[in-house]
């Protein structure tokens, strides 16, 4: 007797009612699980693509430096002295000093016929700094700030490339966000319709429960349990499938690609956050979908 037996009695009832109705509508349950799996796989795949695009761009961005040229009338000593000042500039992560000779060697190394260049000597080049940034989308601001430093004659930056990277990142993020939102709503809709089938079938039972004085929470629970189970079955299955697909693609890319920057994030790194995300979506779809389905029956 007592409170504990009453509680376990109730929980047993909710579980029994919720799970048995999954099997009572085997087909609709199966269909809604499939829809959840499909939605999660699409959501998951897009998010993973977005993650990888981000990762690749990060690698590319770290190569994308700004060149700050030192005034020609500065000696090498004077030019070197500028380094601490440049490191102070906001958004600058690191700076590398390159003398005009080094620059000349690098430059001439790119051409077959160096005869012409040798005539010119390294004098036509200036001492320079390669400047690396934390956030490439702030390149314009950083460029302006660098130009303010006395001794810096000119700053050259590939603004279009930086903007291109930022644009790709934003586009991919926005598309995958919008898609995730749409698919979430689709899953909710399908889930609530599946549970609505149960509520419709049991409308007389619900009416009797209300008539004899069951609380709304008590009436709601079996349907929440049903939704929760469907949601979790869907999300766990989708997770396993997502894992398989990702591994397959990962292997292919490593096999085929000779490109150093095309590096796929290791699944182990994202396994846990992805699992949490999938379970969270399954949980929310189950609970919210069934709450929506039962809402109308609890109005009086």
């Amino acid at each position, binding site marked *: *007797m007592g409170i504990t*037996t*009453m509680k376990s*009695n*109730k929980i047993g*009832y909710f579980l029994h009612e919720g799970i048995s109705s999954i099997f009572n509508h085997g087909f609709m349950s199966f269909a809604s699980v499939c829809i959840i799996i499909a939605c999660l796989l699409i959501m998951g795949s897009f998010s993973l693509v977005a993650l990888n695009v981000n990762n690749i761009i990060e690698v590319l961005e770290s190569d994308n430096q700004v060149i700050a040229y030192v005034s020609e009338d500065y000696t090498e000593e004077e030019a070197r002295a500028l380094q601490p000042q440049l490191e102070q500039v906001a958004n600058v992560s690191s700076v590398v000093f390159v003398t005009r000779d080094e620059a000349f060697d690098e430059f001439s190394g790119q051409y077959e016929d160096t005869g012409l260049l040798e005539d010119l000597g390294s004098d036509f080049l200036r001492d320079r700094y390669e400047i690396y940034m934390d956030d490439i989308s702030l390149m314009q601001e950083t460029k302006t700030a660098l130009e303010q430093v006395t001794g810096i004659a000119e700053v050259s930056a590939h603004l279009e490339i930086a903007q291109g990277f930022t644009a790709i990142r934003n586009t991919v993020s926005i598309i995958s966000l919008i898609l995730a939102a749409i698919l979430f709503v689709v899953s909710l809709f399908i889930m609530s319709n599946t549970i609505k089938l149960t509520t419709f079938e049991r409308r*007389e*039972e619900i*009416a*009797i*429960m*209300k*008539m*004899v*004085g*069951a*609380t*709304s929470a*008590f*009436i709601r629970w079996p349907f929440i349990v049903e939704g929760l189970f469907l949601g979790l079955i869907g999300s766990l299955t989708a997770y396993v499938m997502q894992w398989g697909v990702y591994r397959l693609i990962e292997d292919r890319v490593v096999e085929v690609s000779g490109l150093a920057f095309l590096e796929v994030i290791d699944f182990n790194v994202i396994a846990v956050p992805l699992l949490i995300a999938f379970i969270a979506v399954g949980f929310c779809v189950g609970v919210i979908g069934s709450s929506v389905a039962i809402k109308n029956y*609890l*109005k*009086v």
Partner: protein
Amino acid sequence: MIVMRDVFKAYENGTKALKGINMEINDGEFAFLVGPSGSGKSTIIKLITGEVACTDGTVIVNGFDMNKIKLSKMHKVRRTLGVIFQDFRLIEDKTVYENVAFAMRVVGASKKEINKRVPYVLDLVGLDTRSNRRPNEISGGEQQRVAIARALVNNPRMIIADEPTGNLDPARSLEIMMMLEKINELGTTMLVVTHERELVNQFSKRVIAIDGGRIISDGMDGYYNYEEQ
């Protein structure tokens, strides 16, 4: 106890079902509510069970003011009431026993309490030998007795029956009414809606007659006399 003061009810489509109802039903009383079809009897029942709200006036059910009670507290009112309908409203895939036990289970009773109470009420309505049958395996009169057992099982202060004998032949109807009378004698307040004159006149009870949404007579003479008004 039920108290209604100047109660008006208009449905969303404009139908004025009740036009100023005043009545009181005290604890332990047995009252018939009679009147022709469409006179507003079921509307009164629905006001008592909280299924609809009145447009104007006051409805008090076993101490709860139905205009003020929150939806989340409505189950408290309903636990003081046992409700019986013309169409029995049993769950077809549950046995007689399970139908009655269900009413206890959904208000949180323990297994032990259920095992003790259900056989007792089934015995009270004479269905102890029918516990394992399903509703479609027993007669209409027996089905209504299951509904009575279900209404009784949580020990309500009051039973409300909306045309409980509407689907039964005269002999079964009399049986059901006598059973309700017996339950009333055990202390449960009883409000029975019917439009069967013969049946009402076999009992000497209070009769509240209603027509066109108004009470046209209310007396203890036990006579169903609305036609003469």
